[in-house]
Every structure is written in C-alpha cells, then in structure tokens.
C-alpha cells in the first residue's frame, strides 16, 4: 500500500471511509473499523495526528509536531512513521491519491498558534480493542439451499454468543 518505514515525507493519506468511522472528542478519538469489528482509541499526539490525516502531507505533520513540541524532527519522525504504518496495517488509513496538479488540502488554521495537547512530545499509541470481533467474523464459505437462502452447514453448532442472550 505504501512505503512503510521507507515512506516518503511527501506521501499523504486519508481515513479509509466508509469502512472506518470515527468521533473526535477533546482528548480522544474513537475509531471503528466496520469491516473488521475492531475498534480503537488514540489520544494526545495520536489524536492530533489523526485529526490531520485527511489531506496533510506526512512531512508537514512531522514538522508541525516538532515545532509545537520543540522536539527534533528526527525524534518525532521516529515514532510517527511506525504509528502511520500501524494505522495503515489496521486498514484505518489509505494513501490519498490526488490527481496531478492538485494540491492536498492544507489545514486552514495556523497550527503554530494551537497549544499542544501535552506538555511534551510523547510517542503516539494506537489502542486496539477486538472484543467485538467475534460478532463479525465472516464465514466466507457458507451453505445455501436451492434458491440461495443461507443455512447452517450440516452439523454446525447453533451460535450462542453471550451478547445475543
């Protein structure tokens, strides 16, 4: 999908809509992957990155964080790149393919004037919750009757997930 740890600083991403939905709160972003049944949360620096994902260039994100937290860009980059790798591996972001000649959307506010969320830079962390995944596990091969109605395979146990009862 993208270069992983070798990604270009000119690369930009977008949220993998509509499969991924999210809600931004003051101190936390809740993210749900509707395709996998996994949900996530990010806060602090991770939330700042997430709110800039759509349209921002990776290099600009890194430079902006380095400036706001008075931290060497190399230090910021060392943790932001793996974080973005992880977001991509989880299917939460995808490369943003902008047509030639078009510029990526830049944030309209001057982020240098926005106070940082934390007193110092901390590596972004993606918290992952997969406890709902069992409700969504797809059975890729499913038996059907003569006209296409799904039926349980012969001998399959009735499903009794705790949430249904």
């Amino acid at each position, binding site marked *: 999908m993208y270069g992983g740890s070798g990604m270009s600083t000119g690369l930009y991403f977008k949220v993998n*809509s509509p499969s991924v939905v999210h809600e931004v709160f003051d101190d936390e972003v809740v993210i749900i992957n509707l395709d996998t049944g996994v949900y996530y949360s990010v806060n602090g620096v991770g939330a700042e990155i997430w709110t800039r994902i759509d349209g921002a260039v990776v290099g600009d994100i890194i430079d902006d964080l380095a400036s706001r937290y008075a931290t060497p860009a190399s230090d910021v980059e060392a943790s932001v790149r793996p974080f973005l790798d992880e977001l991509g591996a989880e299917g939460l972001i995808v490369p943003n393919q902008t047509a030639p000649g078009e510029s990526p959307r830049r944030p309209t506010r001057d982020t240098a004037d926005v106070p940082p969320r934390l007193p110092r830079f901390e590596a972004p962390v993606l918290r992952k919750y997969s406890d709902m995944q069992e409700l*969504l596990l797809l059975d890729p091969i*499913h038996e059907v009757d003569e006209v296409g109605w799904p039926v349980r395979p*012969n001998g399959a146990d009735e499903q009794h997930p705790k949430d249904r009862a």
Partner: protein
Amino acid sequence: MRTLNPDAPDVARPDPAAFFETVHRAFEHADHAAGGSDRWYLIAGHPVRLRFAGSTLIPVITPALEHLSTAPVARPALTVCLWDVESLLPRVPAPPWRMHGDINSQASRSYSDERIHISFDIGTGVLSMVDDAADLAVYCVRDARRLPGYEIGAPLKPILQRAMRGRGGQLVHAAAVGRPDGGALLVGKGGSGKSTTALTCLGTELLYAGDDYCMLSTGSVPYAHSLFNSAKVYAEDLGRFPRLAALPSRLDDLGIDKALVFLHPDQREWITTGFPVRAILVPQVTGRQETSAMPISPAAALKALAPSTIFQLAGMDHSTLGLLATCVRRVPCYALHLGSTLSAIPRVIQDVLASGGAP
C-alpha cells in the same frame, strides 16, 4: 445443497422492491387462508400495527411488547405483517444480499437502500423486511416452534430499528432504569453487568425499561423508550432475584440455561415506557463489596455503547456512531463500579440521578 462462494458474481439479482412485494403477497395469501388478527403497540411513541396471519405467532411475539399495548388508530406509523410458514422460504427467491450490504455478521445477512431493508437471521430463521415508502414491514418466521428465547424476549429488532430510524430513533444495546423524570442508560457488551444491574432495581423506585435493548430518541434531551418487558437471567442466578423467581419463566430451549421472564402483566408496576436520559452508566464488576460511581469521559462511554450496538444489531450503518456520540456528549457519563452487595446498587444509581451530574 450448494456451497456459496462470496466472491462469485451474483447470478440472480432480483429488484429489492419487487422481492418485498413477492414476500408481502405471500403474507396476504397466508392471511386469507388462515385468517388474521391485529395487535397494536406504541413503539417510541408511534402506533404500530401487527397483522398476524393465523395465530401461531401471537403468543410468541406479543408477550415482550404487551406493556406497550395501545388502541387502534386510523393511520399507524408502521404495519408489520407476521406469519410462520415452515416451508415458505425455499419457495421465495433469495434476496440480493451481496449487491451491497450493511454490516454482515456470522449470524445475519442484510441489504439496505433508500427504500428497502432486508435482513435474514441465520440463527433464528427469521426474515425481516421494511418498505419505507409504504410504512410496511414483513416478519416471516421459518418455524415458530424453534424460535429461540433471545428472539422471543426481544422480537422485531431489525424492523423496529429501520422504521424508527426515520423517526429519530436509534436501537441501542443498553439496559435502562429510571423514573418518569429521568433515568439512566446502562451500556456495555454482554457480560459487563448491565442486565444484572437493571434487575437489581426491580421493585425499587427505579422503574424498568429494559435489560438489553431500548430505543433511543436523540433529540436535545436523549430519551430512552422501552421496547421489551422481558428479562433474562441465568437459571442458577434466579435465587439472587427473588422477585423474578416468583414469576413464570421459561428456560431457553436451546439449552443455554437462561430463564426468560416477562414482567408484564404480573409486575406491571415495575415497568416504565421510558424517560429522559439523565446519565449513562458503564457497569464494571469489581471485587469490592460496595458500589460506587465515578465520572468518565464521553469517549469512554462511547466505547462501551457503540461497538456492541453497531456489531450486534442488524440495520446499523455509518451514521450510527455519530448518533450515539451525540448522546454521550449530551448527558453525564459514569463508570458504575459494581460491588457484591446487589441491594446497594439502586441507591447509587438514584444518587447519581438526583445529583444531576455529580455522584
């Protein structure tokens, strides 16, 4: 029996509206042959007519809804056609699940567009469909005798979700207890303690609006509407709830040993049809004896409410998260640390509600 490869292109892709009409005609034939009768219920404030073809489904579907019984009106908000036909489904062409779908799970398949919603629950063998343009729905059961307790205790959910969504309602996976002037939503995945918490409130000042599902109206003040007067408790736990143990119950005949109890009519005084939501509580079982409440962030409450609602209930879509987020932003949210002294739980909830925002 052939095996379906989900990657194979659809061979037959019937028109959803035409498919709805096909199945609805089947109902009309069944109604004409077996005779029919109506029941009326007020669902989230909207009159809903249930048309039963034959009588088999009436004692199966209506008990959970009886506390919402209402008089007939000239123009129902929704008419649901219900029948049980053991051999109907093989004669009806399969609907277009894979044209594009809602969130499909291991247990259900669904299809939605601007007008038609179709869902089939593989576990229960229930086909649910809604035609928004006609305010009409069908609920076709393969075999009423094999309908599991979790469906009998909370029937028609995909239909109610779809129909009420267009009327400002959102079906949620939550218990609800409170007073007419305000109450609490209890949210969290199965096993988190929300049902047990709701049951501890039976017979107290906190009235019961549901132990697993309710309909949330997301206005300026969120409102929780009761849908089902059923309660489910493991048979071995009935002794902890003596008021429940005294009521008639049935053990789930699929062998998971959960007793299904209907609070109406014997204990109708314990039930409320709904209340404004004044607090969202996230139960958490602790090892301590005492129960307490601690404020939590709206984000934490959303993580408890949204995933189980979105992934357990059919008919959810990309906008569901936003609706739920609106609710958690508008009311105070708390972690309810549950202690082992169950009788103390209702008092803590009442204190939270009385405080209007601080425990």
